[in-house]
């Protein structure tokens, strides 16, 4: 192995002439592919062992306590996504999963992680009843707002490692049912370290910290909120979300009369198309008297779920499944807890670099809008073109079901990429960031085989 490394080093010197005399200590760094868009030669994007996304869907995202899912149990939220997503849309032939090892990872309810495992098992039975649910292992992950993205990344890693052949990375949050509680019992030692103490700050306070420390004005934040609503409304009206939303049949209880009414929810209900600067300016700040964070420029409290189906390219091609995009890289980077929202600004460059790209090579970004302050800061810090970021709105307009947002972002990105066409790369950022690619080798439309109706007659008769 030493020999191979030395050879690589010698050859690398030919390509990266660092000094006039080659130093023998030139360090090699591992990266997925050092040839980005800027490379002189064409990057061959398609390998059989690429981890690809063949489906990504979500439920509508609804306001908690008042929205369409206020009377829906978390268990019932994701089951339709798994069911629709995997089975009917992609038309997996029955029994496909029998000889294949499959796994599910969920960025589960951030608020109720301990509850998650059991109800996941339960709704596997509901959702995946077509393929031996008891043999499919399940695991829940928690990385706060990035949980959904982390679940997708974990599945990709597991597939790469050969632990699964097919995996579902999903996310779910039902904030109508589960409350954000203060941490009950805290180790008294946290008081010793400022940074440890900062971990206990309410999220809104960290948003104020970001605004204050990096000089993000109220006006900038309100503007970001207006833009988010405007874009989300435009996308919703033009039917862009139709492809990614799975309608959920559930019930709504009238709070006054107590009458249950069956409904089908297929539209996000948090978007306010008429949001404007004047109205937002009137709102009171929530976390600090002279602060900047208001209910209007922070993400909404919501219910929702999303799921992403991943497998190796070779398997997708073999099964004739559509390839929406390729999972390229993932990175999670820590930041000062007092300004936790700036995570994307730290994680995105790392993920982009490890995909062998430059920020300019990325065509679309999806950055979580937990608060307008951190969102505006991240865009400014990275110098992103506003036309490339959250083109269909973000969590301020759509809502932020904590555990589901990551999976939601991946789905929104992939479907937007599909509309935009060929050869794009795109990143999704929260505290963690991932890069996906829609290269030359993804399917133009859909290569899913439609099942021909079999009339049970022999060929001779037809």
């Amino acid at each position: 192995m030493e020999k191979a490394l030395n050879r690589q080093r010698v050859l690398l010197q030919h390509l990266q002439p660092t000094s006039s005399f080659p130093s023998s200590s030139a360090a090699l760094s591992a990266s997925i592919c050092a040839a980005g868009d800027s490379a002189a030669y064409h990057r061959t994007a398609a390998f059989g062992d690429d981890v690809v996304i063949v489906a990504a869907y979500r439920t509508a995202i609804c306001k908690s306590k008042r929205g369409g899912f206020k009377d829906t149990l978390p268990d019932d939220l994701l089951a339709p996504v798994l069911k629709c997503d995997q089975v009917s849309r992609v038309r997996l032939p029955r029994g496909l999963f029998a000889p294949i090892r499959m796994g599910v990872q969920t960025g589960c309810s951030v608020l109720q992680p301990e509850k998650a495992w059991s109800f996941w098992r339960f709704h596997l039975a509901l959702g995946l009843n077509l393929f031996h649910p008891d043999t499919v292992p399940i695991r829940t992950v928690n990385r706060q707002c990035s949980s959904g993205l982390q679940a997708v990344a974990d599945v990709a890693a597991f597939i790469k490692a050969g632990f699964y052949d097919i995996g579902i990375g999903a996310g779910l949050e039902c904030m109508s049912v589960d409350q954000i509680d203060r941490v009950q019992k805290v180790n008294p030692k946290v008081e010793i370290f400022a940074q440890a103490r900062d971990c206990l700050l309410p999220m809104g306070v960290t948003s104020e910290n970001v605004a204050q420390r990096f000089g993000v004005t109220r006006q900038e934040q309100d503007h970001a909120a207006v833009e988010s609503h405007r874009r989300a409304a435009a996308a919703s009206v033009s039917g862009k979300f139709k492809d990614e939303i799975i309608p959920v049949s559930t019930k709504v209880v009238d709070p006054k009369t107590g009458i249950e009414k069956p409904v089908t929810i297929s539209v996000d209900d948090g978007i306010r198309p008429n949001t404007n600067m004047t109205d937002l300016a009137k709102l009171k700040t929530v976390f600090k008297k002279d602060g900047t964070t208001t209910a209007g420029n922070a993400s909404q409290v919501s219910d929702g779920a999303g799921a992403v189906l991943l497998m190796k390219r070779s398997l997708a091609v073999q099964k004739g499944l559509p390839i929406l995009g390729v999972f390229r890289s993932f990175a999670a980077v820590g930041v000062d807890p007092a300004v936790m929202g700036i995570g994307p600004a730290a994680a995105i460059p790392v993920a982009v670099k490890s995909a062998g790209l430059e920020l300019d090579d990325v065509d679309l970004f999806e950055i979580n809008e937990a608060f307008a302050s951190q969102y505006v800061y991240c865009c400014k810090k990275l110098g992103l073109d506003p036309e490339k970021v959250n083109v269909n709105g973000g969590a301020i307009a759509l809502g932020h079901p904590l555990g589901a947002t990551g999976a939601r972002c991946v789905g929104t990105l992939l479907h937007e990429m599909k509309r935009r066409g060929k050869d794009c790369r795109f990143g999704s950022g929260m505290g963690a960031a991932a890069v996906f690619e829609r290269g030359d080798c993804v399917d133009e439309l859909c290569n899913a085989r439609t099942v021909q109706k079999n009339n049970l007659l022999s060929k001779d008769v037809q």
Partner: protein
Amino acid sequence: MPVFKTPFNGYSVKFSPFYESRLAVATAQNFGILGNGRIHVLDLPSSPSPQISELASYDTADGVYDLAWSESHESLLVAAIADGSIKIYDLSLPPTSNPIRSFLEHSREAHSADYNPVRRDSFLSASWDDSVKLWTLDRPTSVRTFKEHAYCVYSAVWNPRHADVFASASGDCTLRVWDVREPGSTMIIPAHDFEILSCDWNKYDDCCIATASVDKTIKVWDVRSYRVPISVLSGHGYAVRKVRFSPHRQGLMVSCSYDMTVCLWDYMLEDALVGRYDHHTEFAVGVDMSVLVEGLLASTGWDELVYVWQNGTDPRAF
């Protein structure tokens, strides 16, 4: 003209000095980083058949970085292997009795081999162990080791007129000229500010030598006044991997580069770049000009393809 697909990544290609339709290709698995190697001896089609045929192939335990045809026997081939060994193959013998010799003296990768065209009894090998070795077929060990370079020697090439003179190009950014009768190098030319990957003598002017470097340029030197180059040829986008003078025209040179192109140059013209071929889709690392057919070129690269074409035609058209 025809194309030949090799299973491994191409590293070098050489026309036979005896048969106009024969050439040999050195290949290495996994880009020469790790794995086996294979030497292919190919015969070009006579006009009606469209296929290049393979006359023989020899597997090696490590990548083959370069090879040289013997100038004295039509069936002999010298190969420089990545494990540091120098192996001799005889095409007239069955594959089982090959290689007929294997010399293991270099402690690191052997990167080039060159057969003496004047005296025709000896050959040189250049290695990443910073040394050049002189060999003859009949001795079990090398005749001499030339060790002055401070980094990998990528190429050592005999002078086409003087039987005892050769030049070596090294990653220590110098070109050295040697006379085997002298104890040390007779000339040191700090030719580039970056690694020098290849050099070749002009076939019509025994004082003229070209060097190719990581600095993307080719420089042409006169050894009698080596302070400044006669000419600096720029046009490649990445390091220039190999340069060869034409056996037929004094000023003509061919080069290949990590920028995946093969370029033709005439250093005596004002617009020196006279041709550019971009048929390879990976690093172009091997190129040669036929001695027996004027204008016949061959190239190979990491895209596992060997192209043979007449200068002026499209290598991909056949």
